[in-house]
């Protein structure tokens, strides 16, 4: 983890360019945008290789669904552009992706872009709420644990995070599902709905709809929080411990500040910086967790869509979800770089 941060700092530091040049915000932004663009292109190369080069014969896979004779296959091959050289197909692929043309799903007979559009918001809602809650919880626990490291509180918090980190997301989801929908011991059955995002055939006011969605959101969100908050505890705890020996904390104490003030006003703001980067860098892991959670709770988002696409396997749909999920992680990393610069004056001045 720390080497990722070191690389971030190293990248921000730049080479031996003159000072005015290095300190320019636009140069920084341009460099990061260029990096993100290259990442995006590399991701497209990976996606193209997986979905367009590796399958030996996409036409044969398509033809499994409908009986086709060789002439039709040749026509289909031409129509899909499979008779073109690889580099030409790659350029077409990049062009289509940038225009949002992701092809048609084999199982839904609908464009992949429109399917993804329908399923995007439930995922944003789930990932967004789970991230906010786990960041707040993780940072709070991490600060407390790191400040008194070695204490009973620290050992409990670290132990619980280590165990939760080792728990497979989908299994935890299933356990909560059994506990709160089927019921066990003192927990009544049907406390929470078993899946989906809203009760089918539900009618009521606007506020009742919101309440219904929240009721469906609680279990998936709780599962995701339990699995991801542990990482924030670990990161925040170790960066607080790194700050503990710093002379400025001694100064703050010498000024006569109370322990709480030393922590809140001096240690935490400094320790927060590495954590912010890591929060965004962890988004890839959260996306992975969301695929498992959405599958367990049939939450109608991109993760569940990926699972449904896997059952066929519906390659154009899988390709679409892969591109959208990866692109959003790249965008989030870019935002992290920007935020880091805003938050840390040292990066701004270098």
């Amino acid at each position, binding site marked *: 983890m720390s080497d990722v941060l070191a690389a971030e700092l190293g990248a921000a530091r730049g080479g031996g360019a003159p000072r005015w040049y290095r300190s320019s915000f636009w140069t920084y932004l341009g460099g990061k945008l260029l990096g993100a663009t290259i*990442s995006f292109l590399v991701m497209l190369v*990976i996606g193209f290789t997986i979905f367009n080069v590796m399958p030996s014969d996409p036409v044969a896979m398509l033809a499994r669904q409908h009986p086709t004779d060789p002439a039709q296959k040749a026509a289909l091959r031409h129509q899909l552009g499979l008779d073109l050289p690889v580099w030409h197909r790659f350029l077409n692929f990049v062009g289509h992706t940038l225009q949002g043309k992701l092809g048609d799903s084999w199982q839904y007979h609908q464009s992949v872009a429109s399917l993804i559009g329908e399923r995007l918001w439930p995922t944003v809602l789930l990932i967004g709420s789970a991230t906010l809650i786990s960041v707040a919880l993780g940072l709070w626990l991490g600060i407390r644990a790191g400040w008194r490291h070695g204490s009973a509180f620290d050992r409990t918090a670290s132990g619980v995070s280590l165990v939760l980190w080792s728990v497979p997301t989908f*299994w935890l989801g*299933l*356990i909560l599902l*059994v506990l709160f929908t*089927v019921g066990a011991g003192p927990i009544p059955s049907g406390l929470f709905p078993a899946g989906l995002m809203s009760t089918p055939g539900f009618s009521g006011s606007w506020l009742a709809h919101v309440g219904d969605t929240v009721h469906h959101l609680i279990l998936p969100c709780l599962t995701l929080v339990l699995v991801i908050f542990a990482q924030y505890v670990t990161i925040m705890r170790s960066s607080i411990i790194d700050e503990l020996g710093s002379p400025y904390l001694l100064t703050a104490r010498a000024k006569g500040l109370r322990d709480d003030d030393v922590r809140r006003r001096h240690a935490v703001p400094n320790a927060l910086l590495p954590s912010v980067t890591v929060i965004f860098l962890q988004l890839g892991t959260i996306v992975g967790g969301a695929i498992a959670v959405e599958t367990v709770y049939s939450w109608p988002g991109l993760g569940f869509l990926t699972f449904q696409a*896997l059952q066929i396997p519906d390659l154009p749909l899988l390709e679409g979800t892969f591109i959208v999920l990866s692109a959003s*992680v790249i965008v989030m990393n870019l935002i992290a770089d920007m935020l880091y610069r805003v938050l840390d004056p040292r990066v701004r001045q270098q």
Partner: protein
Amino acid sequence: MSALTAPPRIGRARRFAGQFFRMPTAIAGVAILGVFTIAALTAPLYIHSSDLDVTQATGGQLAPPSRHYPLGTDQPGRSVLLLLIWGARASLAIGVIATLLAVVLGSAIGLLAGHYQRWLGRGLMHLTDWFIAVPSLPLAISLAAVLGQGATSITIAIAITSWTATARLIRAQTLTVEARPFIERARALGAGNVQIMVRHVLPNVAPLILVSTTLTVAGAILAETTLTFLGLGNPTEVSWGTMINEAYTGSAVSRGAWWYLLPPGIAIVVVVLGFTMTGRAIEHILDPRMATR
């Protein structure tokens, strides 16, 4: 330790073992791994193919734990305990093989990137960064889906998505080792690039490769169970992931059959913890500064 010769290894190994077995977490981790490895390796001695065959199952459907079936039975009536022991074989094998592939790839890239610090090294580090930017589960899912169901495709998918951390770690360590005087001495005596990397740098980064391996196995086993749960595994092969998948797709969840759902998940948690605790303990000895983390 003399500054001009490579540090001696045998005395270091003994001191390492002495420190290692004084840590409770290290003993617990190694004990867990030992028990699971022995159970997985000796399973064919007491589990027969008829025990795992759906058509020859003798127990009741989803029967709760009893004297004859200590962990109850699954839908076709097989013993969950025997399935659990047999499932360790597939889950551990895929996790370990995928990790070995990932660690070999990651170490090679890290070593090359640390040794050749000019364009090759920079290019390799950029490649690593780009791979880190792509979320690993969607990438693994896509790879495994295109390669087809089965253990081989899952292994390849996990290996391709988990080498980056090792590459970064080994590169950083290679840079520190290369700055030490004995490398300069070797170079002055006429050692070539390959000799320096293999004879001098590799033995000194080897302990870190070990740490990286144990921590990567933990992640690889989680990835394996996730991919098999999503239905990418071989459905006829028993593994912890397929057991949870069957509990989910079958009626185990809706009928509250905790004896079928709990054991494979607990087994995964315990094994992953075992690998993580072992890895952290080795890390702790190698770098005491990490001890507080």
